[in-house]
């Protein structure tokens, strides 16, 4: 969890540096939603400590790690209630094992939802097994309310299949 917080912090810094988000057809909406993708770069320093940082995607190859992020901002003067962000996973990626275990996911195309540990899938020969990160088809976040002017970021880590 600490790692995730670090990643979030790093992303916020990047987001600030990037300046205002583009506004187009979405300006009619009180809440603005903006997606981005970063690559996870792992480097080892002289004393052998591994550090990871999020960088703009360069080389994209099978096995590479990505972080998909969604920034939201409530631009209106009223609160947005029951704010739900649904993100289908691109089929070329799987949810990374370091994803928050409390993340709400679906493994059946968005039909049913729960934490990964609570879900199962049925194999072709009819046997049910526990769902794995590779089975995840969607991730979802729910915020009870976003106050006017409030912004934040949601993200999930993925590995290119």
């Amino acid at each position, binding site marked *: *969890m600490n790692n995730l*917080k670090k990643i*979030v*912090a790093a992303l*916020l810094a990047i987001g600030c540096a990037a300046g205002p988000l*583009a506004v187009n057809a*979405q300006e009619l*909406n*009180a*809440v*603005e*939603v*903006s*997606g*981005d*993708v970063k690559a996870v770069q792992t480097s080892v320093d002289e004393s052998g400590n591994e550090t990871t940082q999020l960088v703009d*995607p*360069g*080389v*994209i*190859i*099978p096995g590479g790690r*990505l972080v*998909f992020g*969604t920034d*939201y901002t409530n631009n*209106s003067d*009223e*609160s*947005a*209630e*029951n*704010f*739900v*962000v*649904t*993100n*289908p996973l*691109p089929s*070329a*990626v799987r949810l990374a094992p370091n994803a*928050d275990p*409390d993340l*709400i996911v679906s493994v059946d195309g*968005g039909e049913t*939802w729960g*934490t990964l540990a609570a879900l199962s899938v049925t194999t072709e020969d009819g046997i049910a097994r526990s769902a794995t990160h590779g089975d995840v088809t969607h991730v*979802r*976040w*729910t*915020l009870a309310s*976003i106050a006017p002017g*409030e*912004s*934040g*970021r*949601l*993200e999930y880590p993925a590995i*290119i*299949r």
Partner: protein
Amino acid sequence: MDTHKLIKPLFASSVAAIFTISVPALAEGVSAGTLIENTATATYEDGEGPQTVDSNTVVVRVDELLDVTVTSLDGGPIGADPGEAVLTFEVTNQGNGPEAYELSVNPAIAGNDFDTIVVNIAVDTNGNGTYDPGVDEILTAPEATQVLEADEALTVFVIVTVPDGVVDGQASDIELTAEAVTGIGVPGTVFAGQGVDGGDAIVGPTGADGSAIGSLLVGITSVDLTKSVSVVDPFGGTSAVPGSIATFTIIATVGGSGSVDDLIVADAIPEGTAYADESITLDGADLTDASGDDAGEGSDATGISVDLGTVAGGTVHTVTFDVTID
């Protein structure tokens, strides 16, 4: 900002989002050029009721991994003697995009008893796994394969000449190497813009090259035939007189570490004698004169022959037959 809220999942209803992407399922990973597109959809309620908003779609393109393996398809050393020998290999594109490979052969491997001379590299054009001269395409310099799709394997033949003067039991290795035409290097080396659809090509774990060893073992075989005769005359002696029966014995000795195919021991009936019907034996067992029912056939006109078939080195067979002296 409350970062705790960002990672705090809550249960709520949601909306279905639309997302489509077509990715071929490959064991080695998604294909080079595949677009990974991600869009999030948000729903919420404000003073005006339920609202839905899509994020922008972010797109990244999968780059091309350059990986290749080479394996020998020969089950073991190829038996060889001076002249042509063919070794069989398989080149497999382990990357995730189409790639051609330049092939090279090194016949001078440390430890060789002798070195072969490389004649040609050919590809298994008709896909039957066997080198067919005149059918299978012979590669010309630079000896590059056609473009192999991701996971595609190609059978490659290396035709070599075994020099004269080799001795039975000598061995020689040759090495076939395949290198990605785009380039090779330490894993992670990037060839910018040289991948599928203008993406990058990246050297994978194999270094974008691979090689395998094929082996030859000289199996020179020799066949020695030794013929002897013993005579029994009608009087119990060993004189060659009319009515004496002469028994010819032919000992076929196959030497060396290889084997010979279609070894047939044949002999004519000497003038002045008549073949004694049904007298052929092979290693002490009787054979018939008729053809086709066993290894032997015999007649006064055509003589005798015994088909020993394929005989391994180190084997001895004894054939006998009788004649009557006129």
